[in-house]
């Protein structure tokens, strides 16, 4: 069945003429029509534009063009500006916003010939770990629709798991690709900070945000990352370093690879979760890797550090939403202050307002040193801990999440309980490191993910290690019931 094929297999079917991109696009659009209502994974469907793009891809192929992503359907997280298409960021604030340009990620994937089926649902302004804060309603986990898919890229993850597209894009600021990938049983990649351009990607926390991909395998993710990655002069934090050939590196033997088990990740980890990671380690040893225990002593401070730094940066970034130039404006503003306050008060949801206010507080006079400056110092300590660990090992391994997917509504009333879902993912964002989550088993019939973290710009090695694990296991090829 076509929707279960890998990107490579789809490419071969398209090349051989077995199917056209228009037919493939119609197939995925039909799946979305049938399956998305139960999931609410999409905010905007772009069926007409998709068929036009598919026809254009078919013409490019007929003219002799080849390329692994030519004619391949995708869904973009609704945080990426897409020219002429609503870009809502999951918020009432941008419900009426039609982006006047393409994000670099969108432009690069378009140039490669992909077909955009629609925009994925997400936690509002990327703030959340369950996709319950979206103005457009929660996303359901295809493995159990009473459960969350994770967040903030919950729509992208659910769509990938339900095979509504060949792959989807996401963003990861504190775990928003890796955590939902783990909870929905797909492969999620967060690249090194600066590896993928943030131009046109609506900013949440500028020193943490990074764009990445959800795919059904590391091999597929490698193809997509190849097209997304690379220097962009329009992003002042984009790093000008060559992009290796990720697909070519997938098969390199792991012999001699040193994998570090983070002691702090295993403290207090539930036995069922820990045993899945230990099973994965046996597989890695079988492939020739050595495992070593390492410690990152400051890692337990990573969640409070993040919840000072990220809100501070978000309070600054979201000040552009003022009801003046674009986005939501309140009715009958009495004066400029009323315009600002009610446009923002009405346009933003509760979690966004909480984070803006937390950020405003920690940056305010009298508190800046105690919170923000302190957090930036702890950030350096955490980063130095990772650097020291990578002098002993090549990659770090651990769980992605403390538990499998929780019930919709279970944690939404207590922000701090929700924040602790990010406990394993946040460190990599603070240190700017790349991380991958891949399916490693099930707990109570719900998927669990294992996480690999590498040094800066080690995406090739991470994808290689993930790929070899996926050749030795089949967790990543399982499908939720009803979505096979």
């Amino acid at each position: 069945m076509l929707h279960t094929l890998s990107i490579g297999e789809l490419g071969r079917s398209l090349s051989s003429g077995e199917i056209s991109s228009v037919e493939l696009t119609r197939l995925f659009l039909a799946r979305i029509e049938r399956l998305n209502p139960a999931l609410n994974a999409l905010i905007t469907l772009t069926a007409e534009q998709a068929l036009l793009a598919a026809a254009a891809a078919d013409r490019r192929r007929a003219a002799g063009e080849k390329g692994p992503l030519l004619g391949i359907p995708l869904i973009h997280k609704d945080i990426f500006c897409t020219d002429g298409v609503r870009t809502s960021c999951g918020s009432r604030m941008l419900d009426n916003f039609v982006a006047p340009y393409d994000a670099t990620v969108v432009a690069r994937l378009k140039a490669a010939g992909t077909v955009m089926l629609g925009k994925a649902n997400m936690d509002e302004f990327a703030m959340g770990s369950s996709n319950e804060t979206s103005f457009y309603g929660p996303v359901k986990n295809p493995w159990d629709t009473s459960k969350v898919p994770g967040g903030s890229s919950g729509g992208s993850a659910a769509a990938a798991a339900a095979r509504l597209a060949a792959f989807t894009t996401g963003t990861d600021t504190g775990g928003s690709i890796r955590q939902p990938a783990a909870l929905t049983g797909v492969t999620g990649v967060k690249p090194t900070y600066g590896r993928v351009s943030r131009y046109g990607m609506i900013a949440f926390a500028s020193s943490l945000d990074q764009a990445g991909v959800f795919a059904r395998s590391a091999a597929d993710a490698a193809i997509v990352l190849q097209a997304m990655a690379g220097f962009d002069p329009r992003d002042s934090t984009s790093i000008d370093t060559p992009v290796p050939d990720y697909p070519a590196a997938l098969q390199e033997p792991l012999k001699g690879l040193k994998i570090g088990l983070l002691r702090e990740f295993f403290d207090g980890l539930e036995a069922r979760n820990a045993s899945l990671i230990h099973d994965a380690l046996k597989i890695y040893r079988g492939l020739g890797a050595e495992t070593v225990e390492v410690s990152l002593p400051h890692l337990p401070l990573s969640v409070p550090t993040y919840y000072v730094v990220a809100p501070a940066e978000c309070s600054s970034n979201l000040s552009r939403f003022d009801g003046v130039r674009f986005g939501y404006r309140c009715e009958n503003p009495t004066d400029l202050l009323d315009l600002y306050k009610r446009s923002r008060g009405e346009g933003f949801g509760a979690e966004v307002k909480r984070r803006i206010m937390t950020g405003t507080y920690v940056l305010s006079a009298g508190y800046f040193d105690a919170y923000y400056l302190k957090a930036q110092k702890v950030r350096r300590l955490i980063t130095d801990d990772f650097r020291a660990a990578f002098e002993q090992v090549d990659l770090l391994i651990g769980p992605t999440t403390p538990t499998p997917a929780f019930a919709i509504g279970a944690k939404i009333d207590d922000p701090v309980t929700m924040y602790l879902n990010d406990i394993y993912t946040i460190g990599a964002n603070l240190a700017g490191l790349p991380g991958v989550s891949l399916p490693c088993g099930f707990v109570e019939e719900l998927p669990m993910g294992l996480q690999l973290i590498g040094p800066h710009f080690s995406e090739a090695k991470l994808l290689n290690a993930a790929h070899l694990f996926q050749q030795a296991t089949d967790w990543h090829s399982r499908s939720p019931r009803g979505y096979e």
Partner: protein
Amino acid sequence: MSLTRQDVEKIAHLARLSITEQEMPVYVTSLSSIVDFVDELSRARIGDVEPMAHPLDGQHQRLRADVVSETDHHEKYQANAPAVQAGLYVVPRVIE
């Protein structure tokens, strides 16, 4: 270190956010619990460490030549504006 209602009102004003009377107690409670949570940082013993603003060391702001590189798109960009007149954004009167 709990926040008072006055604290939250002041922060909301600085952030230009309107909070309704109904919502206020909920925000006071949730912001207090968040601040208590991040207070763990203030108890952490840190030596003399440089604060870190950027996750990758050695980065600096890239500069480019001071030449025009964009063309006029203001009509396209202003298509999203709530109120525009003669290329200007219209807002309630600012100066009495």
